[in-house]
């Protein structure tokens, strides 16, 4: 039986000891989120995820969604779980109090998301997409639309979707064909087909609010001619209650590698009634507002899946008896030693552990700064915080999902053949993790976003928000002998990152393809350096607690994992730097016909 226990101890460590979680309540609008309330939320979230959502994870995967007569049935238990989820107020956690939300910090919401992704990623896509729709409407819709839709999205009686992709266009949204014809009453009639629409149709809520990218008549070519529309499945009557069925319908379900309990729909808009959100032709702006929030959330999916996979791998490695330790028998009373004793198993487990704990710190860092960006009273601080979030969003998305995929694969490997069969649940994590590297902008697109947009913005101002604190930390701590084992490797990786950054920026000026060729490796170099910084700080925070003050060995394990990271994972930056410096010629000169 797969297990999952929310890692509350580590979450609280990162939140309170590393990321100044107690400072959240000092931000205007977050006053109530002191440690008492936050801890209560986390405890309750853990209970929900462990006892309600996690038990449906494997069954949901086995059963999948069913498409019958134009409607979609979610797997057994999902509807009931969603009712509990909604009644518990979880749909409103990070929403604006003006629309019935609880106004929780992004930091708290991120921890909750992680638990939900560990417990049941498929389930999480339904409220996740609703939240994306909420963000776009909240940021850009008219007051009338907000008054009508937001309270229902916030309280979870309605859910939402984002309808972007079409059969012929995914990443390149400029090619969108779905059209919106203005009607005399101010509404629009939408025509077109959208694919890969998560939660496009299901039986969890009484209405589904589709946010649809489409073109107005005579719109300019490309992304400058795309507008955003709100298209409800059921047209709200005057009083806001569901009225007539709108001309939008699910045409089929996709058959997927993973997240099989998430309904991925083809949606047909056949003259469906919609209303413009924001200004004509400015749909991409609202879409990106949603997308940026979602990209952080998708990164957390990789983290959550890595965590649950790691927990199961550790449990299995303790139980499973095979062979004897190379250093001599460890369990003479048993037929064989637990596989936990074997170096390669320990390598896999520590790699997974370091990935998960490091990524949690990175996700929380981004979320914590996002809270500053949203709530800090000083506009200069908000600007600086927003710069940082802009910069690290692609890193969080791509690094956490890539490492999440690596971690879940290690989780299968630790199980051996038992990881490859379905009963133990480990292979599901791999399949579920795979999509996170693809959707909300493939990881290749994230890397291009980092080097093409974020790096050159304002002559590197976004970079400053990361490079200066890290450089300052290295300068301040480099003379501390206790930290030498951590700050030394960090400084080395940071130097590589500086050099790679300057090189890519310079080469990219004259040959953009060089920046493109270096992008993925650069994102990983950036990400691993960021993790090294966080591991150094985690070690620094933990060192004073070693010994008597550390009865459960939490801090000892933290410092040990930090050492492992510095010695066994961070050296990957050397290879990445070499790949980057080599340039892209071998790829770009390769003849197309020879592929």
């Amino acid at each position, binding site marked *: 039986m797969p297990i999952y226990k929310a890692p509350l101890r580590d979450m609280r460590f990162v939140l309170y000891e590393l990321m100044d979680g107690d400072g959240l309540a000092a931000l205007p609008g977050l006053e109530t989120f002191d440690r008492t309330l936050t801890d209560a939320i986390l405890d309750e979230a853990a209970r929900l995820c462990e006892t309600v959502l996690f038990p449906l994870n494997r069954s949901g995967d086995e059963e999948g969604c069913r498409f019958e007569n134009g409607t979609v049935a979610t797997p057994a238990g999902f509807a009931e779980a969603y009712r509990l989820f909604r009644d518990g107020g979880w749909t409103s956690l990070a929403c604006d109090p003006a629309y019935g939300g609880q106004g929780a910090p992004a930091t708290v919401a991120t921890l909750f998301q992680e638990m939900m992704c560990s417990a049941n990623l498929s389930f999480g896509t339904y409220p996740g997409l609703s939240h994306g729709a909420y963000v776009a409407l909240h940021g850009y819709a008219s007051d009338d639309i907000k008054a009508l839709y937001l309270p229902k999205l916030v309280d979870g009686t309605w859910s939402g979707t984002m309808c972007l992709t079409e059969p012929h266009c995914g990443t390149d949204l400029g090619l969108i064909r779905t059209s919106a014809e203005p009607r005399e009453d101010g509404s629009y009639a939408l025509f077109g087909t959208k694919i890969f629409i998560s939660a496009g149709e299901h039986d969890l809520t009484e209405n589904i609010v589709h946010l649809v990218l489409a073109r107005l008549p005579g719109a*300019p070519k490309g992304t400058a001619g795309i507008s955003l529309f709100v298209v409800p499945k059921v047209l709200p009557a005057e009083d806001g209650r569901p009225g007539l069925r709108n001309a939008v319908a699910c045409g089929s379900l996709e058959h997927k590698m993973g997240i099989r309990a998430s309904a991925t729909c083809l949606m047909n808009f056949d003259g469906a009634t919609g209303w413009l959100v924001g200004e004509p032709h400015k749909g991409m702006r609202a879409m990106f507002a949603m997308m940026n929030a979602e990209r952080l959330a998708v990164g957390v999916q990789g983290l959550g899946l890595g965590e649950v996979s790691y927990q199961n791998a550790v449990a299995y490695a303790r139980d499973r008896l095979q062979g004897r330790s190379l250093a001599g028998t460890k369990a003479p009373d048993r037929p064989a030693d637990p596989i936990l004793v074997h170096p390669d198993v320990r390598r896999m487990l520590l790699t997974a552990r370091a990935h998960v704990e490091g990524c949690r710190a990175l996700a929380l860092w981004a979320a914590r700064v996002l809270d500053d960006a949203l709530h800090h009273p000083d506009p200069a601080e908000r600007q600086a915080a927003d710069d940082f979030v802009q910069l690290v969003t692609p890193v969080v998305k791509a690094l956490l999902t890539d490492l999440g995929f690596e971690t879940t694969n290690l989780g299968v490997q630790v199980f051996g053949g038992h990881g490859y069969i379905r009963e133990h649940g480990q292979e599901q994590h791999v399949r579920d993790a795979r999509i996170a590297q693809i959707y909300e902008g493939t990881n290749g697109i994230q890397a291009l976003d980092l080097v093409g947009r974020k790096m050159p913005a*304002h*002559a*590197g*101002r976004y*970079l*400053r928000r990361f*490079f*200066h604190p*890290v*450089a*300052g930390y290295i300068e301040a701590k480099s003379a501390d002998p206790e930290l030498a084992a951590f700050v030394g490797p960090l400084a080395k990786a940071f130097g590589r990152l*500086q050099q790679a*950054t*300057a090189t890519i*920026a310079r080469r990219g000026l004259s040959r953009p393809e060089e920046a493109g060729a270096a992008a993925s490796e650069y994102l990983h170099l950036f990400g691993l350096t960021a993790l090294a910084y966080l591991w150094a700080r985690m070690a620094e925070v933990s060192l004073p607690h070693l010994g008597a003050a550390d009865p459960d060995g939490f801090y000892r394990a933290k410092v040990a994992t930090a050492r492992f990271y510095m010695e066994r994972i961070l050296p990957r930056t050397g290879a990445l730097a070499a790949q980057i410096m080599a340039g892209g010629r071998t790829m770009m000169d390769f003849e197309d016909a020879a592929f």
Partner: protein
Amino acid sequence: MVEDIRRVAVIGAGVMGASIAAHVANAGLPVVLLDIVAKDGDDRSAIARGAIERMLKTEPAPFMSKAAARLVTPGNIDDDLGLIADCDLIVEAVVERLDVKQALYERIDALRKPTSIVSSNTSTIPLGRLVESQSAAFRRDFVITHFFNPPRYMRLLEVVGGPDTRADALDAVTAFADLALGKSVVRCKDRPGFIANRLGIFWLAVGVAEAAERGLAVEDADALIGRPFGIPKTGIFALIDLVGLDLMPHVIGSMAGALAPDDLFHRVNRPVATVEAMIRAGYTGRKGKGGFYRLNRERGKVKEAVDLATGDYRPERPARVPAIEEAGRSMEALMRHPGQHGRYARAVMAATLAYAALLVGDASDEVDAIDEAMRLGYNWKEGPFELIDRIGVDRFTALIVEDGLPVAPILRTAAGRSFYRVEGGIRQVLGLDGTYRDLVRPAGVIMLADVKRAGEPVLKNGSAALWDVGDGVACLEFTGKMNTLDPDVMDLIVRAVPVVAERFRALVIYNEGSNFSVGANLGLALFAANIAAWGEIEKLVAAGQEAFKALKYAPFPVVGAPSGMALGGGCEILLHCHAVQAHAETYMGLVEAGVGVVPGWGGCKEMLARWQATPKHPRGPMPGPMKVFEIVSTATVSKSAADAGDLLYLRPRDGITMNRYRLLADAKAMALRLAEDFATPVPPDYILPGPSGRVAMEMAVAQYARLGKATPHDAVVAGGLAEVLSGGDTDLLQPLGEDDVLALERRVFMRLLRTPGTLARVEHMLETGKPLRN
């Protein structure tokens, strides 16, 4: 024989007359400025006197220095016309009325000395009419000198002689305009509008009419008829706002009245109701309450633009012209771009270039004269025939044939060829007779562009090059974006010094960009700062210090030859030269404080040495550093080369060249003079005041801060500057060497660069081109 022009009179103290007088004074010549007797008040010369006073406050300044203003003697025609008796040139710039001018000429003729030359600044009256009733002697000595506004800054001078004008009068005026006034003289025939306005007014008229008739937004029209054709971004409408809408009907009317009935001008000269209504309502452009664009102060300084269809103002918006990008850099693709914007670009530019071709043999026989007139009179980057060459003569001809425009004979002559070509490294131009002739520079003119066309550089990298400009002189050219200075420039300097020492006698630092150098490459520096590459940045600072020191202590003379802006590092390199030959329009300054740092490439060091050594200044360790502090903390930029002398950015032995074209030759001559008995300078010692001096400087800044004239970060930056200029922790007994001051510069530079206030300043400068006051 060409007689020297040593004294000048200008009659008519309107905007043009007064500014012409000011520019004569800029050349260092005494000038009499006369206007009619003032009606009111005791001062009968109040009009001319008032014009001089006004000019001292005008921006852009007609005078290059206050000293120049003192060379202008005001007067009135009734009492002081006798002053013209010892003038060699008498410039008439009175109202454009034939009767007034003719009457004035008679009075002038009675008083002037026999060898003097009389010129008119008319732009609309034919020379023949002006002199029809004058004496034969007057007709021999009479020319038209058509200045462009503002005369100090516009480099074009159109000179027209009549059938009776003596050749040496034309030559004398030309030489005077060239050498003393720094003008590029284009000889024109006595035809309406001469060259530049004949074509320029045609272009503006067709630009307005087509935009109105095709329903274009003025922003889009200006974007189209601007950068894509190498024309200033003011395009059509913003340019008319500058010139004045009310002047247009006057000039257009005089041209329409004087041109033959079959002239193409009549086809494009169509009345535009909106424009006529605007002029009637007093919307005359920038000088009035607004024009096609205006700043609506009632609505809190909202930028607005006119809707050409209705005549109403609406908020100004950014141009939206996808055709420009879709055309790439091809002018032809833009003119053939389907859609309203492409058709507009074509309607305006095809007609304008076709008309330019029709002017050959009419307004001028030389296509290069027409090109020069448009480059210097309208600031086009390339003249009409250079533009046609770029499109291709045959492709252009095909285009205008499609449009039913007349094909000028010169286009037929040029068929299958181009107007310009390079033969054996020499640029040639096509003549009316169908043969090419060499474009020969006048004596005393060397253009680096010619040198570059003819040969290969001695050294070169991505940001600088070293050229052989003859007679044993090498020329260091900056080639980076806006001639910014970066590690490559420093690298090339260090490599150049031994090469020049071995193979040349002297080095000139010169380039033909619109600005000598705007200083360090800030984008590069900011990016490096943003990624905390402090070590790299400090290395670059040190490299610059070493490179400039290598120039200063080179075994050969180094002459800097700036024109336009020489800011920050661009100023510092000049401070290290043994002498500077500056174009009169040189704007020098250590502007580092504006971006939140101190001069780090030896600028502090050189300025301290200059102010410490100047004999005019009080002695002692304090006055010199204090003066440098004043200049550098306020990022003072000279308003001209003459003004730079007051700041000691330039020294008395440095030279000033009025004509941009003569700068390299003058600098080269100076370098060769210096090479005759060159001795490497002796490094100075510095006696600096130390901490007590620093406190005095900081108190001065604190005072400004209290008055609200210095911002919080100004105080931080000034504090750093005070530390450098006072010599750090030195005391009066201990002289510092150059390297000590350089180390201080580096230390403070690096410290300031790490502050958020400085990073914000650099970023703001990069993104807006303006200093941030934080």
